Each structure stands twice: as structure tokens, then as C-alpha cells.
């Protein structure tokens, strides 16, 4: 589920920005501009969502496909029976295991997002303040890792983190530790994997927000006697806020549903909802239950984010 939600939001926020700049100048383009992302959302987000939602209301069956259909024609009586099964949703709350998994995913994604922000902000700030001629190259360096397969990069981290990996060899050789550190198959490795993988998604929106910032504001603050730290928190951070919010969403949302990183770098006791979903789908072969887990994950994620965006929209209107 992480990919469709992720890409849907990328597109949602991106289209919103272009929409605002565009409409002020050219009114006739409104319809065509809005229709493209709307169509995109409908085809790649809304319709798949409805399909998953439909499956979540059915019951699992030993058949192809492995669930019952919601609508049944009764030709003799000319009835159309609609059978909805809410049991899957109820079951999610019967067993605290699912709630634990949601909370644990949100915790891992949340901590990773904070660290990604802390690392990405200085990078984005530096790029935005460097010479315009150098910016292109620096941004290319941020994006460059995407040229290699994501899976390969995660495997590379396994090589760094394992017991006889590069980091341990170096620390042992330098005499800093005398027992190899166990880093692989821990939550620590999962945090590293997520922060590393999603860093560009945080850097890019931060950069675009910081680049637009008017430097004279900082000079004015300095002239009026503000300390650099105060200016940073009173001017730079609020001006970068749209970038911070966009970046945090781009990292947090896919990280919650992340499956590959925790299964490769995490331990067997790293509990994340992506893994639970996998188990429901592949081990229990219960597609309806897996769909219900995915739908609830979406609601848990999307609702608070929509509230944030709503309140933001109101502020912009003022």
C-alpha cells in the first residue's frame, strides 16, 4: 500500500503548487491542469482503493480468486443479494496484536522521519545557499543514488553493518571496540535503512522551500539585533515549513508501510504493519483480512494528514 499512497500524495502536493502559481497568471488552463492529476488520482489511487475496500468486505474462500463475491444474482427470484462482511474490521480490534503493529510502525516511521529531517535540513540549506552554478551538481549528487537499485543499496548496508562488516572491522582495527557490535537485525539498522533510503525525498522539498527564501529578511533581522539562532527559528524555519511538511509526509507515509527494509535489516522481533500484511496475505491466504489491514492503515495515516492540510489551507486563506 505504501507506493500508491506515497505517489498519490507526491502528486497531490505537487499539483497543488503548480496549480497556485499557474492560475494566477493563466486562467484558461485551469481545467486542463486540474484534470490531469485528478485523472491520475482516480486511476492509480481511487479505483485500486475501491477494489481493495471491496475485497476487505468479503470472506476468504478456497477458490480463484480466494474470496467470495459481494453481489450475488438470484436469477429465479430475481434478487440481487449484497453480502458485506464486517468481521475482518472487528477482528482487528479484538486482538491487540494489530494495534501493537500499527503503533510500532508509526513509532519507527516517526523516529526515522525526525532523523531524516535533522540530516536533510543542513544539506538542503547548504545547497540552497551555494552558488547557483553549483546547485545543479549538488542536487544531482542527492538524486544519484536512485540510479542504483534500491535493493542493492539495502544489501550494501548489510555489508556495512554485519558482524564482520566494514564498520566493525574498522572499529576493531582502530582499537575503539574489542567485541564486534551487533548492528544488523536490530531496530537501529532499520532506522539507518529508512533514513538513508528516504533522505532525497526530504532534501528536495526542503531545498525548493529554502531556495525561494528572501535572504534580506535575515539581514533585516540581524540589523535589528536578532541573534542568528533566533533568526533561524523565527524566520528560516517558518519559511521552510511547507517544505518540512511535504518532506515529512513523503518520508513518514511510505516508511509506515515499509516492508523490504525491516525484513532485510530488521530482526525477527521488529514488528511492522507491512510484515503483518504480508503474513495475512501469504501465510494465512486471507486476502479480505489483508485488505482490511491495508484500509485501516490508510485511514490511520490519511485522516490526521488531511486535518493538517485543512488547517494549513485555512491559514493560507487568512
Amino acid at each position, binding site marked *: 500500500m505504501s507506493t500508491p499512497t506515497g505517489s498519490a500524495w507526491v502528486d497531490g502536493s505537487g499539483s497543488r503548487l503548480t496549480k497556485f502559481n499557474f492560475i494566477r497568471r493563466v486562467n484558461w488552463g485551469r481545467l486542463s491542469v486540474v484534470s490531469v492529476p485528478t485523472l491520475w488520482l482516480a486511476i492509480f489511487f481511487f479505483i485500486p482503493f475501491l477494489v481493495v475496500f471491496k475485497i476487505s468486505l468479503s470472506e*476468504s474462500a478456497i477458490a480463484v480468486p480466494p474470496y467470495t463475491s459481494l453481489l450475488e444474482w438470484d436469477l429465479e427470484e430475481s434478487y440481487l443479494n449484497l453480502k458485506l462482511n464486517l468481521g475482518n474490521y472487528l477482528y482487528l480490534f479484538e486482538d491487540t496484536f494489530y494495534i501493537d503493529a500499527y503503533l510500532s510502525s508509526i513509532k519507527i516511521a516517526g523516529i526515522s522521519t525526525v532523523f531524516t529531517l535533522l540530516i536533510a535540513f543542513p544539506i538542503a540549506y547548504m545547497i540552497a545557499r551555494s552558488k547557483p552554478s553549483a546547485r545543479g551538481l549538488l542536487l544531482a549528487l542527492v538524486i544519484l543514488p536512485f540510479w542504483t537499485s534500491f535493493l542493492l543499496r539495502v544489501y550494501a548496508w548489510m555489508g556495512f553493518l554485519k558482524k564482520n562488516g566494514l564498520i566493525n572491522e574498522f572499529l576493531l582495527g582502530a582499537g575503539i571496540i574489542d567485541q564486534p557490535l551487533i548492528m544488523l537485525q536490530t531496530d537501529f539498522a532499520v532506522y539507518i535503512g529508512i533514513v538513508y533510503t528516504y533522505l532525497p525525498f526530504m532534501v528536495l522539498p526542503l531545498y525548493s522551500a529554502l531556495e525561494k527564501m528572501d535572504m534580506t529578511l535575515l539581514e533585516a533581522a540581524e540589523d535589528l539585533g536578532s541573534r542568528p539562532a533566533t533568526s533561524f527559528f523565527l524566520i528560516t524555519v517558518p519559511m521552510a515549513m511547507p517544505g518540512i511538511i511535504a518532506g515529512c509526509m513523503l518520508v513518514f507515509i511510505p516508511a509506515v508501510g515499509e516492508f523490504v527494509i525491516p525484513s532485510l535489516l530488521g530482526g525477527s522481533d521488529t514488528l511492522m504493519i507491512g510484515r503483518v500484511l504480508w503474513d495475512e496475505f501469504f501465510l494465512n491466504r486471507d486476502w479480505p483480512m489483508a485488505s482490511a489491514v491495508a484500509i485501516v492503515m490508510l485511514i490511520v495515516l490519511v485522516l490526521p494528514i488531511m486535518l493538517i492540510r485543512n488547517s494549513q489551507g485555512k491559514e493560507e486563506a487568512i
Partner: protein
Amino acid sequence: MNPKKLGLAAALAVSVSTAAIAEEQVVNFYNWSDYISPEILENFTKETGIKVNYDVYDSNEGLEAKLMAGGSGYDVVVPTGSFLERQVQAGIYAEIDRSQLSNYDNLDSVMLEKISRHDAGNKHNVPYAWGTIGLGYNVDMLKERLGDIPVDSLDIIFKPEIAAKLKDCGITLLDSPAEVVAIALNYLGLDPNSEKKADLKKASKLLKSVRDNYRKFDSSGYISDLANGDTCVALGYNGDVLQAQGRAEEAGQGVNIGYSIPKEGTLVWFDLLAIPSDAPHKQAAHKLIDYILKGESAASISNFAYYAVANKAAEPMVLEEVLNNPGIYPSDEVKANLFPQNAHAAKFDRLLTRTWSGIKTGR
């Protein structure tokens, strides 16, 4: 029949008739990775003119998801027994037409009998290869920690006082709830295929009591971990452990890997050739299966993948080092202690997965 189904039937009828015309040219073979020597497929194409589209997977679950979604387009697939058992119930396999298999008599009737527990009368399958789950271990690390004792018992992973001595060098178990729980139940002297809640609880209690000594539950990474000396004991598939042994020898780092079938008895699995009922090239599929049943082909599979084949005609052509390896072809005495794992009811599978998550995460 509802209108939608009628339409589907019509579409199927059309596709079947076009398939009949286009038959004989290709066969889509979906197999486990590293499971067949490439020359078998090349020779098959040379002899019959049928092109083989070869594709690989690495988990039964992945194969099942594809087949259950329908319209996979594959003609020959290789599920494991307990998976095939349930998939046959779902009606996704065509019956095998033995009149098209001239080499069927090469198969070992004793093994066929065992396999029929998964599929009555073996109507939907033809055996491909079989193997066991057992203990892969680092000979020197174990000797250092446990002394000079024979490694032939599940005690070393199920007895907390022994497992604790191996905690530092690493114990891994397959991340496969049905198989590991079956082995644990058998170790406890219970029916390995029991679906009783109380029995599952006992198995869970056993695994939880040693859980702290396990490094991880893992179904593929243990091959390289064993070969590199990162793990000292792994409960894994025999072919995987032998692969680790080969890799360790090649690397020449002095890592010495052994495999043993535990004396308490262990699980035997069968990978079976089957034809999906919606396979577009059924005749070509039968021809490919018949080719694989030839003694030379089966022997070449056994020599390549280090798994046993249930093919009598193959035996004289299987390399001595493979045929005499008790980890691949166990003695009849050991064979008597092997049990297959049956497919479970959906309700029990749910309970099993939940219990397994509990064991893994300590919840």
C-alpha cells in the same frame, strides 16, 4: 450462471480454441530458482522444437498468490506438497493425463504412495524432487562449544541449556510456521500435523523457552550466513545447507559445514510438477514433464541441485557423491522416521500465524 460468468466462459472458449491451434510451440515453465540444469531445457527444445519460457520464483507463497489470482499463463509449476494439497482443493490444477507420459513408470512407487497423502491417487501431480529439513551446522564452532558430541538431535536447538551455549555464534530457524511447528510437535512426541489448540500451545511454549537464544527466523539468508561462519546452527532445507557447504569449500576460509537429519525424525517435503487448469499449452506441458521424467534428466537435476529425485531410472546416473550422501539420499531406516506436513484448515493457519508472530516478537 450469471451474465458475467457467461461472458467469461465465452472468452475462455475462444482462448481455448485459439490455444489449440497455437499449441506445441511454447511451454511456460515456472520453477524454483537454481533447481534445474540449463541443458535439460536446451535439449528438450532441440528434440521437440518446443520453446521453453523459463521463469523462477523463491517462495511457495509467491507462486500461490499468482496462481490464485488466476490467469497466470504458466503451463508447468512446481509447488510443494502441502501447498499443492490446498491448491487442488481450490481446483486450480488440471488432471495429469498419464497416457501422454511414457516415462511415468520410472517413478519410485514407495514415494508415490507417500505423496498421495497430498493428492489422492496423484491425479494432479508428478514428483520432481524431495528433501528434508534438518540441522546445518558449523562443525568446528560446535565442537568448541559443545565438545565432541554427535550432532544428531534437535536437543541442540530445543533444549535451553544447550542452545544457550550456542547463542553467541548464532542459531537460525526457518521462518516457516507450519514446518517448524510440525518439527517441534514431533520433537515433543505429538502428532506433527495436529490442529489441536492445546498442542500448538505446547509447541509455542517450547519455542518461546529457547527464543532468546535464537538470532533470527530466516528462510534464505542462512545459506550465506552458514558459509561465512556468521551462523553456527541453522534449521534449514538439506539442499540449502549443502549449497552452503559447497560455497564454504570454494571460499577456502576453513569453514566446515555439516548436515544431519535429527534422530527424533523430521519433515520430508516433495516438490511436485503440476499443470494449472488454465494453462494455455497443456500438450506441451505434458511433453516437458515426460522429458523431465527420463532417467537422464532426473539424474541431471539431482546432480545439479543436490536434491533427491524419486526416479528409479535415474539412480545409476546419479553421481556417487550425491547418491551416497545421507543428507540427500537417506537410508531406509532414516526414511521411516520422516513425516510429511499436511495442509491445514484456514482457521488453524490463522491461529498458527498469530502464534508464530507471538514467538518471533515475544508478544
